């Protein structure tokens, strides 16, 4: 049994990394503007589909890996500037409803454009196949996923902590009015912040398209666990999102292993416990949503 636990725990970590990246994107957007982005999954799916389309037109997977998220960001900024800006100052429930509506439109649009059955998307030849880890074969692509996500998160951490812009972003989360009073263009901040979140979603989407099936609902399946991750890890804390993701990933894989019947609800139970005991989440900060 233990020999099954080890690869399973590793899998849990990988899944957790996934949730963490999506959750960080969600968290970034929520922290600064209070927007609960129910369309985050749709952007994820869009990243996957754009990558598919690029590759179908002859580009390499690596090209698509970078460009598809950027294209997704372009769409995201368009949406943000036209529809979300008016809602920034209102109750978060409005943004929740708006993005929920957008996710419905997006899902149907993807169906119309790319078909309802999904599309085939494979890893490039050098990433397909497996690595032998002792007693079992482990897909190379999963290791690749961990690598990409680690790099992305590392770059994000650098950006936020070392650059001046990143500093302003973090300051804006604490006190938007003050930083506006000090002369920073908050609209640019909002835009870049949103772009960062969407980039992560798009990137996760390309990776998800390979690991899972790419269909109009791919992103939405990852949305709920991502929300749970944000709650558990703590709204307002990016490190919390990582911790939360790992926790959720491990929780799901462990219950799958030992109490399979409970694994579906495991993350919801975890979320409920956290919300009741420590509503800010494990690493959450005061002030965001109280």
């Amino acid at each position: 049994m233990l020999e099954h636990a080890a690869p399973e725990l590793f899998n849990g970590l990988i899944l957790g990394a996934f949730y963490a990246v999506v959750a960080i994107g969600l968290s970034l957007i929520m922290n600064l503007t209070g927007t609960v982005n129910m369309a985050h999954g749709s952007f994820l799916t869009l990243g996957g589909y754009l990558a598919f389309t690029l590759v179908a037109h002859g580009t390499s997977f690596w090209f698509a890996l970078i460009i598809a998220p950027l294209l997704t960001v372009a769409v995201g900024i368009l949406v943000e500037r036209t529809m979300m800006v008016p809602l920034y100052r209102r109750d978060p429930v409005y943004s929740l409803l708006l993005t929920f509506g957008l996710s419905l439109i997006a899902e149907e649009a993807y169906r119309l454009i790319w078909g309802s059955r999904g599309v085939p998307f494979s890893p490039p030849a050098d990433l397909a196949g497996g690595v032998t880890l002792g007693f079992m074969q482990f897909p190379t692509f999963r290791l690749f996923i961990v690598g990409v996500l680690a790099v992305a998160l590392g770059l994000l951490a650098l950006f936020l902590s070392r650059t001046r812009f990143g500093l302003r972003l973090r300051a804006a989360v604490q006190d938007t009015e003050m930083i506006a009073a000090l002369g920073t263009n908050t609209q640019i901040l909002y835009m870049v912040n949103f772009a960062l979140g969407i980039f992560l979603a798009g990137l996760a989407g390309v990776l998800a398209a390979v690991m899972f099936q790419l269909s109009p609902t791919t992103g939405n399946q990852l949305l709920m666990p991502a929300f749970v991750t944000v709650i558990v890890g703590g709204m307002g804390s990016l490190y919390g999102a990582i911790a939360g993701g790992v926790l959720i990933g491990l929780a799901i894989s462990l219950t799958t292993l030992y109490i399979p019947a409970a694994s579906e609800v495991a993350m919801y139970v975890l979320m409920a416990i956290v919300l009741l005991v420590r509503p800010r989440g494990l690493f959450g900060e005061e002030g965001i949503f109280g």
Partner: protein
Amino acid sequence: MKGNLAASAIVVVLLIVAPYLAPLIHLDVSILSEVLLMAIAAMSVNLLLGYTGMLAFGNAAFFGLGAYGAGLSIKYFDVHFIVATIIGVVAAVIGALIIGPFLLRRRGIYFALLMIAFGQVFYFIAYRLTDVTGGEDGMNFPRPWFGFSAWHLQLRDQPFYFVMLAIFIAVLAAMWYLIRSPFGRTLVAIKQNELRVRYLGLNSDRFIFVALLISAAMAGLAGALYSLLIMFAFPLMLDWHQSGDFVLTVILGGAGTLWGPLVGSIVYVVGKDIISTITPAWQIFLGGLFVACVLAFPKGLLGTTLDLLARRGIRVEEEPAVVGTLESSRAK
């Protein structure tokens, strides 16, 4: 006041003749029943969202509990219409009694997420208990007779609608009474500033809990009757997307208004039925409706109309002054 009563009377008359007008726009009377039931479910959300300021995103759990309560009692105990409905309502209220104490600990978006989480647990339970509930295949059952012992009849589609109409009017009247009562006014006060209510010495938790129970009962009633309408119960009735539909209906019509849920329900249910006949891409219209509503009609159709009327000096007495506002304070 008199004008208000007259307007309400006109609406009731329209609802009475609706089954005869519906075929003219190619609608079946059973869709009208669905409109009324969705309106009741939306009213349950409205009580929490529009009047108490709670983000009620999990009412589908109560709706589904009502449906399964009714369906299971018919399938295994062969009860009749009224008993099945009551059992459904009781099931929903029991669900609220169980999860209520947990929900009460938080407000705002946390409340919403907790509600979704518990709703999903119920959903998975319904999915899991395949032997009992039929799992994802759902549960078929016949429509039992309606009445009391000796006097009873089998309700076909049109009489069913009129029974639904009677129930709807009763629920609407109860809602109207509830809002004007001291209890209802306290709820609105909680929406505006919960902290102040507590400073005044009132236990806001208790008020919210009762509101939750009433809301659950209404949603359960709608669910039980809906399952009797379609003679079926299935797990997706408990899913959070269903909750989202209820919330959309309330926002569409106008949160915090009495007739808003009905307006929203008419637009949503009828609109969906007509549009889905015309095109399979109806979901785009649905999503578009959501988006347009949030961006341009946050007060909903009725709320915005009342607003426009108010600007022209026509004050329609929507008690209390809470028309269409969704903003709520956050005490915690």
